[in-house]
């Protein structure tokens, strides 16, 4: 499903270069649940961002479903992203000017789905927010916002779901509920799941743990 080879990411700024990811090669099969762990600054989020095509690597290749994304033109990448990838951010990143249901509908609308709003309503009901449809992000609690974000990420039934510390901004009870939600959806939809976290408990609920340190793969083990 995801094939990464010799992936390197260097950023230049303030006169010197920083190597964020250093020659990473990984293979992630379909439907696998993977945790990416590592200390702050180890390159976890960068790796996830590159897989989502949010930025271009300095060198190396990333293939999703056999398609090379590192050289894809921006507009092609945008379309590819909305079909293949769902993304959940640590800080939710809902669009503040849109209501909950509109936020969820955005990717569906972008794909030209005429039933976008109905589907979005269904999705929100499924994550338990049937009574919060027309609320704006500021009117929702953190947990509720993240559940909207999860619904949004799953809206187009993407084969790959990327979650970047989805519980990082939530208290433990709320966080657990969001994780349950993600895992349920993963199970129901057969999604490949990559989850960045630094919580050992959460990592333990995955099938595989990839540990990064200083931009390199320090450990890669299958568990459970």
């Amino acid at each position: 499903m995801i094939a990464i080879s010799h992936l390197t990411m260097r950023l230049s700024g303030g006169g010197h270069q920083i190597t964020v990811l250093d020659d990473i090669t990984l293979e992630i099969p379909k439907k696998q649940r993977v945790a990416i762990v590592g200390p702050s600054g180890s390159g976890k989020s960068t790796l996830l961002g590159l897989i989502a095509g949010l930025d271009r690597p300095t060198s190396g290749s990333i293939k999703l479903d056999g398609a090379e994304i590192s050289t894809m033109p921006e507009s092609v990448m945008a379309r590819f992203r909305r079909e293949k990838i769902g993304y959940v951010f640590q800080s939710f990143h809902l669009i503040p000017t849109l209501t909950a249901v509109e936020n969820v509908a955005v990717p569906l609308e972008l794909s030209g789905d005429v039933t976008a709003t109905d589907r979005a309503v269904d999705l929100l009901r499924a994550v338990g927010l049937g009574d919060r449809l027309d609320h704006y992000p500021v009117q929702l609690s953190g947990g509720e916002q993240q559940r909207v974000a999860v619904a949004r990420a799953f809206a187009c039934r993407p084969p790959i779901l990327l979650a970047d510390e989805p519980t990082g901004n939530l208290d433990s009870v709320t966080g657990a509920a969001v994780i349950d939600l993600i895992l349920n959806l993963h199970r129901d939809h057969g999604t490949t799941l990559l989850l960045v976290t630094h919580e050992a408990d959460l990592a333990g609920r995955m099938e595989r743990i990839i540990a990064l340190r200083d931009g390199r793969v320090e450990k890669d083990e299958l568990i459970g």
Partner: protein
Amino acid sequence: MGFAVRMAWREMRGAWRHFFYFFSCIAMGVGAVVAIGLFASNVERAVTREARGLLGGDVEVRVSHALSEVGQTVLQSVSSRGVVLSHASELVAMAATVRPQPSGLVTQIVELKAIDINYPLYGSVKVDPSRAVTDLVAPPASLCRAIPESHGPENLPLASALSPVGRGSGEGETCYGAVVQESLLIRMGLSIGDRIKLGQAQFVIAGVLKTEPDRMANMFSLGPRVMISRAGLEAAELVKLGSRVRHRYLLKLPASVPVQPLLYELRGRLAGESARVSSYRDAQPQLKQFLDQLARYLGLVGLTALFVGGIGVAMTVQAFLKGKLQGIAILKTLGAESRTIAATYLLQAIVLAAIGSLAGVALGIGLQTVLPRALAGMLETDLLDQVEFSSTLSTASLPPILKGIGLGLLTTLLFTLWPILEVRKIRPVMVMRRAFLASEANPAKLSEGRRIGLAAHWPRLDLPKLLTAAVIVAGLAGLAMWQAGSWKIGLLFLAGLLAGVSGLLLGATGLIRLLKLLPVPRIVSLRHAVGNLSRPGSQVAGIVTAIGIGVMVIATVSLIERSLVQQIGEKRPADAPTFFFIDIQPDQAQGFARLIHSRTGEPAPQLTPLVRSRLHSVNGQRVKTEEDGEKERETKDEQRRSWYFTREYVLTFLETLPKDNVVTRGAWWTRGQAFPAPLVSVEEEAAKHLGLDIGSTVTFEIQGATITAQVSSIRKVEWGNFSTNFYMVLSPGALEGAPFTYVATVRVPPQDEVSLQQAVVAAFPNVTAINIGEVLDSFARILDRLSLAIRAVALFCVGAASLVMVTALAATRYRRLYEAVVLKALGATRGLIARSFAVEYALMGTVAGVIGIVLASSLSWAALRYVFDLSWSLQAGLLLIELLAAMLLTLAIGFLSTYRLLGMRPLAVLRQE
């Protein structure tokens, strides 16, 4: 597209308040353009509707002498076809009081018009008391009897001997009446029922003239109108051989007689009369052209206001998008393409522009009901009343309204395309800037994403951007040409505007550079002001450009006006004459010279003989005098050329070369030279346009007779020297036997002006005294009114500029607020913060003002040099005032938009952080 529409709506629904400045900026400019456009279209409509009234008939035959018997017969013959004829004579004359006022005899130059019983053929003359004007100029005997007997004969023996007025015996004696403009009553201290003397006759003032349909809408007039009967004119004995008078024979055609054939017939049959025959259709272009040009120039000033507003729009969009960075990045992570997002924001811009334009149209409609009254003051005659102008909207109002909306939309598009294109640069990774970029420390990348809008540097070969730039420039040019109605003026306007904007942008960046180079000031408030100005993303450039353009427009107009007034008025040569006395008859010449000599003590004034003529043929080729009404003359050059061929030439003969004349080719005749055939010396420009060279022959037509002269020299003439100057000077003896009159220039000290004029009018009632000082004063008044009108529209530019500044400050409001409270938390006083704001605004205003007046000086220099052919002089006082005004304006606007920040409590603000 569907997504873009939905997103655009969702984004706008909660943000109306943020867009207030956006549509205010557009509304301001569109309002100005629409108001001017509506006014112009209403005037044109009224003028077209009243075309016959403005000419005074369907056809006009105009001659500078009474028609010959043959000519009279021609007109009589057409009247048998049901054509109604009216004869009006117009001339300049002197009016005098009959009863001496405390200050002595009051004399006043007037524009006299003698009418017959059929006047007016079209339109209506409004008079107070409201009776037919023809009745008032021939008042009933009762009114004449009412005049007391006591005055007259003793005081004015000559007049009483010749005039039947005031005898009051009621034995069927003629009594003359006059209808006058109110200004005459005011200037001469008279009221209805009083009498005035014109030439050799006395007239009872029977009414006040309110509107006169066919008084040509001149900006310029020598004096108030006085209307009398033809019999009255005859009795006044003002029209003598060679007098300066305009005879207008007006024809009203019955429906059965078409205009055009009759026009051609009359042109043919009256060819020997030096007559100008025109139809009501031909008479319009002049007036229309004047109003058209005025509307166009005012329109360009309006367009400038719109462009200044465009800067505000660009800034609003820039600030708005800055706040949307995160949202845009999120949309991109969700798979939205740049194109879709750009479309979303472009749609919003269009919707807002449409709302702004509609508000502008409403503003324009409101203004155009006020504007006519303001502009009407520019014309000496009340043109608007004359044509029964109304501000009501009609289908003809649609084009200017649609044009205003079009201009609003296009301007918005032009000014928002660039910032919106920057959307493409936002990368989806921006969404993780806190988690990703911030932690992994890459300020360079972050700022790249942040750099949105006009401040962004030119990317290498960014094709869409280059295309957009080209579209923007082409669009601006198109808009300017559309408004100017001429590609040449449009391009000139755009070139001036672009030069102005680049000058201002350079100045603004120069200021920032300079501030960075200077050592950090020690005074805290100064340090903060400088910091605010030179920080990255400061709004200095936009504010300075907007305010600077406003200053530039207003200062240019006032500089040109001031220079013109100075050059023609104050810089008059010391030996410039006080009076031109015209229409001195040959038999009055000696007596006139004696009178002047005895009154002034100076040697007798030089009398210059004048003969009125038209060109008959040039080098044997007959000059076509009839105007081709249907064919529009395309270029200005052609118009000018035709003017040289068809104008009236005042001829003279002189022994010596007039003062300030320089012979450039050929030679002036020598003393004692014999002239077997007449020679003529031609003015340079006239020679060029008429195609004359040494040896060419010119034939003049003087009241039916012709005289041919050979060109012996070409002269350059200093027209501005306040002497009698001539296009054509003939050799001595050439005009023997022609009906000439004399003109004299006389110079007296100011305190003797009135008494000299009184003496001349008393002794020679037919001689008209034109006071140069008064003429120049009225010219200055016209300039003043014109300049005022343009400056009034220019105020829209300043209004738009102020809005831009408010917009810019609103965009930085949060940053300022945050800074202010942090400073306060650190112990700064409210006064210190206020001072630092003041220094910042004043600096911006000063830079904008300085560059604005420098630009205005160069623009006015160019205009004076190339358009008016005058030299430029530094107007230090005026420039200083403009500069000060610019500074105070920025200070005032700055404070009005930010004073509330000063009172904020730190804790309340910081807690929100």
